[in-house]
């Protein structure tokens, strides 16, 4: 069945009331039945939940074949916990048929690819998938199609019972003996633990894994002891250098800066750019650099940013400290400046993934957002964005909060170079639709700006400000003139990943790629 972004969704996937994507806000107003976990009562007074090993924690939580284990990705590319747990479960306990439900997976998790190839891991649910794992899943080696959800879609699916977590593993920079966890105060700090919060509330069992046991009570806790079954202390939960880089520096790349300046110009031309406006930006080169130019426009107009959300890093913390933004609400930290500021700088708060972006709750922050500035691997002439598959068809990205912030915001700006090497970023059809075009308003490239025709109001704003813009077709033609028109990718029938829209409908599928070889 064809969905609202023109993608053919196999009927076999449309079971149990599953629908195809039918446009923005299609599910608005419907009721959902929330799912509750089945948890163990701990009535007796207890001194400590610390157990000796991950194996022991797994046994205590009745780990069994066919279970779903959840993980969060706050330790990013420095994470040791996913590999540690899966190795124990598979190699020590001999478990099989396991599903990993992670908030995201990255190149730190390359070893999991072996477990997929060996058939021990049979399901993957994640926002992002990269490195070797992306390659083996793309090659069709995972037993069931991977399910890709946005950061808002994941808590929606968990709360609605579409994902049932048997055991949630919380990598915690600090924990006390009862399992009160924080992202700060230890030796592998990550700042916010926002993505772990829903998992802990909805999993049957919760295991905290920490490398820094602190005195009870570890307050204010991001994950609370009331949800925790066991605490395991290990030597190290991750590589601090890869968890939070030193300060995320604003790009000095002239191309990034040029695009960032145009982004700020576009923002400043809209009626939403007024005192108290709200803002989210990615941490990619041009997105982050937009902060710099935006600050100049704010100074010129004598206005302040009301609040900012998202993944947080140094430049936003700077604005907060300078009093140029009222509050920063933080679901994840990308650098040490962010990590060191959360709960320390007045106005810098932590939030859960659900609070951030869940389309099925009653007050997600993204829905009150004025502007979001985001990147793209590809964007097509219908403004559909792909941030999941490379233009070679291989899984190597992450929708993250992209579809949520795009859908919720009043003005979603995509900023990307027109081409990367020989890849046309602006193209006829994206390989995979991860953010539907009806959520995307403006495209800023190094070769020009295009406004979605669905937003005549924004076109007027740009015209009034004298900002030149062109049709997105023109940009696509320019890109193809530079790199040549790409050949269509060739696919096998097998679906290797299902991409859920944030509302739970099916937005697209990724099939097994048939690589081109010289005959």
């Amino acid at each position, binding site marked *: 069945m064809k969905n609202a972004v023109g993608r053919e969704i196999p009927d076999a996937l449309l079971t149990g009331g599953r629908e195809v994507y039918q446009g923005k806000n299609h599910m608005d107003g419907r009721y959902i039945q929330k799912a509750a976990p089945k948890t163990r009562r701990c009535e007796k007074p207890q001194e400590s939940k610390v157990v000796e090993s991950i194996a022991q924690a797994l046994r205590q939580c009745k780990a069994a074949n066919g279970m779903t284990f959840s993980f969060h990705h706050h330790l990013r590319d420095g994470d040791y916990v996913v590999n540690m747990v899966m190795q124990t479960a598979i190699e020590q306990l001999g478990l099989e048929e396991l599903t990993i439900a992670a908030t995201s997976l990255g190149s730190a998790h390359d070893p999991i690819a072996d477990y997929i190839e060996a058939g021990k891991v049979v399901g993957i649910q994640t926002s992002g998938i990269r490195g070797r794992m992306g390659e083996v899943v793309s090659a069709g080696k995972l037993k069931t199609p991977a399910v890709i959800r946005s950061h808002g879609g994941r808590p929606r699916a968990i709360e609605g019972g579409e994902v049932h977590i048997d055991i949630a593993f919380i990598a915690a920079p600090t924990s006390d003996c009862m399992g009160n966890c924080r992202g700060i105060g230890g030796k592998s700090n990550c700042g916010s633990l926002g993505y772990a919060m829903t998992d802990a509330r909805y999993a049957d069992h919760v295991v905290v894994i920490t490398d820094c046991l602190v005195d009870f009570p570890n307050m204010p806790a991001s994950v609370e002891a009331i949800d925790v079954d066991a605490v395991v202390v290990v030597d190290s939960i991750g590589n601090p250098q890869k968890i939070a880089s030193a300060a995320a520096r604003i790009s*000095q790349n*002239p*191309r990034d800066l*040029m695009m960032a300046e145009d982004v700020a110009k576009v923002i400043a031309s809209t009626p939403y750019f007024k005192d108290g406006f709200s803002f989210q930006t990615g941490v990619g080169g041009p997105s982050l650099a937009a902060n710099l130019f935006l600050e100049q426009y704010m100074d010129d107009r004598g206005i302040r940013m009301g609040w900012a959300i998202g993944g947080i890093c140094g430049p936003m913390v700077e604005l907060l400290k300078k009093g140029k933004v009222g509050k920063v609400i933080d679901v994840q930290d990308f650098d040490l400046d962010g990590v060191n500021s959360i709960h320390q700088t007045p106005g810098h708060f932590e939030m859960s993934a659900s609070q951030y972006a869940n389309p099925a709750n009653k007050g997600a922050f993204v829905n009150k957002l004025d502007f979001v500035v985001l990147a793209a691997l590809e964007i097509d002439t219908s403004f559909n964005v792909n941030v999941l598959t490379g233009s070679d068809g291989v899984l190597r990205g992450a929708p993250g909060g992209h579809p949520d912030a795009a859908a919720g915001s009043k003005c979603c700006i995509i900023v990307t170079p027109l081409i990367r*090497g020989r890849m046309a970023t602006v193209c006829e059809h994206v390989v995979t639709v991860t953010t539907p075009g009806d959520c995307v308003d403006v495209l800023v490239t*190094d070769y020009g700006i295009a406004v979605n025709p669905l937003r005549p109001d924004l076109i007027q704003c740009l015209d009034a400000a004298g900002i030149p813009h062109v049709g997105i077709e023109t940009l696509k033609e320019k890109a193809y*003139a530079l790199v040549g028109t790409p050949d269509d990718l060739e696919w096998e029938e097998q679906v290797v990943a299902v991409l859920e829209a944030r509302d739970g409908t099916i937005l697209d599928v990724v099939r097994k790629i048939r690589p081109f070889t010289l005959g």
Partner: protein
Amino acid sequence: MIPRPRPERFRLRRTMMFMNAQKPGLIKDAYIYGADSIMLDLEDAVAENQKDAARFSLYHALRSIDYGDTEVIVRINGLDTPHWREDVRVCVAGGADGIRIAKCESADDVHTIERAVEETEREFGVEQGRTLLMAALESPKGVLNAYEICSASERMFGVAISGGDFRKCMQTTPQRDGVDMLFARGQMLLAARAAGIQCFDTVFTNLDDQEGFEAEVLQNKAMGFDGKSLINPRQIRFVHQVFAPTEKEVMQAEKILLAYREQSAAGVGVFTVDGKMIDIAFIPGAERTLRLARACGMYEGDLI
């Protein structure tokens, strides 16, 4: 192939941005930053054993990339190297707008290149005189011979000083107030103006010293330079800001050109604008101001 219009000898050249001709990722779209001219470099940026490879890259870039209104100049290797003759051939064959003669020391040097360009234009059936020249003065001798260099050829559109080599010869280093090159810049400007060609200042290489860069650009403008060589697109915007005319200058230039049109149609040679005596000597300056104003987005009329 992308046909390029015949190069204009005197056009707006506020910014000339250097780009390594050997780096495909850089030269494919160096024009997007809005420099008036880009300078594809076959000389210092290219290692000695990659000169041949750089020419192949340059040739195909020139033939296949649409640089639009951006002028494309190539810095060739010096006359004391085995490379310059093939450099000239590839520039002419590829259709570069101009050639920058490195380490130019005399009118003879200009003539040597000029002859090679003439021969090559014949070889490749390129319109005679199409390929423009500019000279880079990099030594005391070059600076002392500035006038004969500037006036050596009808193809010459400008002269530039190359600070790095020149300062070494002079046993000095960049100074905050520009005193290290004050005389050389002055001498070169005098020679360029006397010969009626354009004059460009050297690059400012310390990207971390924005303050020093800005001071130097302001001094360039005050001394009367037409523009500046740049090493990074980030430097373009400030130069364009500094070299932009004021609104008053634009209005004045418009009035002068309008009055000139009317008066010369009526056969009058000297007239007054706002109480000021104006004759034909004011016209090139007024035209230059409006051209600048157009490039800066300050003028949309049809007087130029």
